[in-house]
């Protein structure tokens, strides 16, 4: 078999509750900072959950002129800003590469929910004739990928993966394929989400999926801790530049890490509950290792999906033991800091994973106080840790039973 085209990561653009831009983001991870706090986007009177992890002080005008952003909903704005930051981090002038060889794959779990809520109110309280004419292109999940291509002129493959909280995992996997099979040289890939809205907060609360630790938001996201009681809604976008190794080397780009393989599976068991044995997740990791042509023993760090839900963290622990045996490598969940960015969760955790590889330092799981015997893992509790790590694996799972694992290696 002919050798495969290798895939490098050359840029990282996080716009997250703990930092915008890779410098501030990584600094927050190293210092174990939480991005959670009382919701400021709207009045939470009457809501059982009153906090979330918002991207503070985000203003699209800092990134793009108002005329061009007028049809961008917040999730698209975040994705645009993250793409711009990622391109800058990659030292890539958007005008330089052949535009037909640059694609965009940006996933989102939900898309433009806020504008749907707002316009539904117009429909019910005013008149159908007052519904804005650009509602559809604003709310559609693929608006982010479309707008990024429009603004930067990238004419290659362009799509949006939607698999709930695995969306950006699928975007990364798709980007690997598009580069490996020669359909593109560069893929601007990742995920975005901005659904801290009344309807979404109410719905996730009703589902009892969220932590109710209203009195201490920063301590609410506590993956693998015995006292975890649900996830913390987050928002944000993280976009990465995946680039064919030959192309990246030819332009003298700094190679941040190599993407070695991925695995995709479905639990095929339940719409929202993870498979109780974690079999689908385990198989995704096993397939990813095989695709990367390494073994479980080579992995030095596992970036867990670890949302801080009672069931999810146990299922992931079981899955990790299935693949890595009794003594798996260190595992941490950056959701303890960022909250759960849903469609942007996988690429956001990947940003921390890549920096971890680059600096040989593992991101911590903060708020870890009481071990849960059902989550018997080394979770890198509370403090970042220096550690030799050549290969890491990043998990993203989603409602619907989607499992994505992506393996990366030190440059």
């Amino acid at each position, binding site marked *: 078999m002919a050798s495969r085209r290798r895939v490098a990561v050359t840029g990282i653009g996080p716009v997250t509750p703990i930092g915008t831009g890779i410098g501030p983001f990584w600094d927050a991870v190293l210092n174990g900072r939480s991005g959670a706090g009382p919701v400021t986007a709207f009045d939470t009177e009457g809501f059982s959950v009153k906090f979330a992890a918002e991207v503070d002080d985000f203003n699209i005008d800092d990134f793009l*002129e108002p*005329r061009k952003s*007028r049809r961008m909903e917040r999730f698209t704005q975040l994705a645009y800003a993250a793409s711009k930051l990622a391109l800058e981090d990659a030292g890539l002038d958007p005008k330089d590469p052949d535009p037909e060889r640059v694609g965009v794959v940006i996933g989102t779990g939900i898309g433009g929910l806020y504008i749907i809520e707002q316009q539904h109110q117009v429909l019910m309280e005013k008149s159908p*004739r*007052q519904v*804005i*004419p*650009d509602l559809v*292109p604003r709310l559609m999940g693929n608006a982010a990928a479309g707008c990024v291509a429009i603004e930067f002129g990238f004419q290659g493959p362009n799509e949006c993966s939607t698999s709930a909280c695995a969306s950006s995992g699928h975007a990364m996997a798709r980007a690997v394929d598009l580069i490996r099979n020669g359909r593109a040289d560069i893929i601007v890939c990742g995920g975005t989400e901005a659904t801290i809205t009344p309807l979404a907060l109410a719905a996730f609360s009703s589902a009892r999926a969220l932590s109710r630790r209203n009195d201490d938001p920063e301590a609410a996201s506590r993956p693998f801790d015995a006292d975890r009681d649900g996830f913390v809604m987050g928002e944000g976008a993280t976009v990465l530049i995946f680039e064919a190794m030959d192309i990246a080397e030819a332009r003298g780009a700094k190679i941040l890490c190599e993407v070695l393989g991925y695995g995709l599976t479905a639990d095929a068991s339940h719409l929202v509950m993870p498979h109780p044995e974690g079999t689908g997740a385990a198989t995704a990791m096993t397939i990813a290792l095989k695709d990367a042509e390494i073994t479980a023993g080579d992995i030095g760090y596992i970036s867990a999906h670890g949302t801080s839900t009672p069931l999810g963290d146990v299922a992931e622990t079981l899955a990790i033991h299935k693949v890595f045996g009794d003594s798996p490598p260190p595992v941490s969940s950056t959701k303890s800091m960022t909250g759960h960015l849903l469609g942007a969760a996988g690429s956001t955790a990947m940003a921390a994973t890549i920096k971890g590889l680059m600096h040989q330092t593992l991101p911590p799981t903060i708020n870890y106080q009481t071990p849960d015997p059902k989550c018997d893992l080394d979770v890198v509790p509370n403090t970042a840790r220096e550690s030799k790590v050549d290969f890491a694996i990043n998990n993203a799972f989603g409602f619907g039973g989607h499992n994505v694992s992506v393996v990366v290696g030190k440059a």
Partner: protein
Amino acid sequence: MAREEILTALKEVLVDKLKVEADTITEDANLFEDLGLDSIDLMTVVMAVEERFSIEVSDEELEEVSTLGQAADILSTKVGAGA
């Protein structure tokens, strides 16, 4: 009087909703070529003015419009013509 009011309303929508630079807006400016509007932008403008002045504009009437001044002319004939 009505025309001036409508012109002001049109400018407001162009600036506030469509983020057009205020100093580029003149009566003779072509909405599409000079101000960069597209068909959806035009609908946004028309809807805002329709609501504010309780008037209705048909697709056929809109086809006649290419400048801001023309838009103000057509819309002002409607105001007071029975809503």
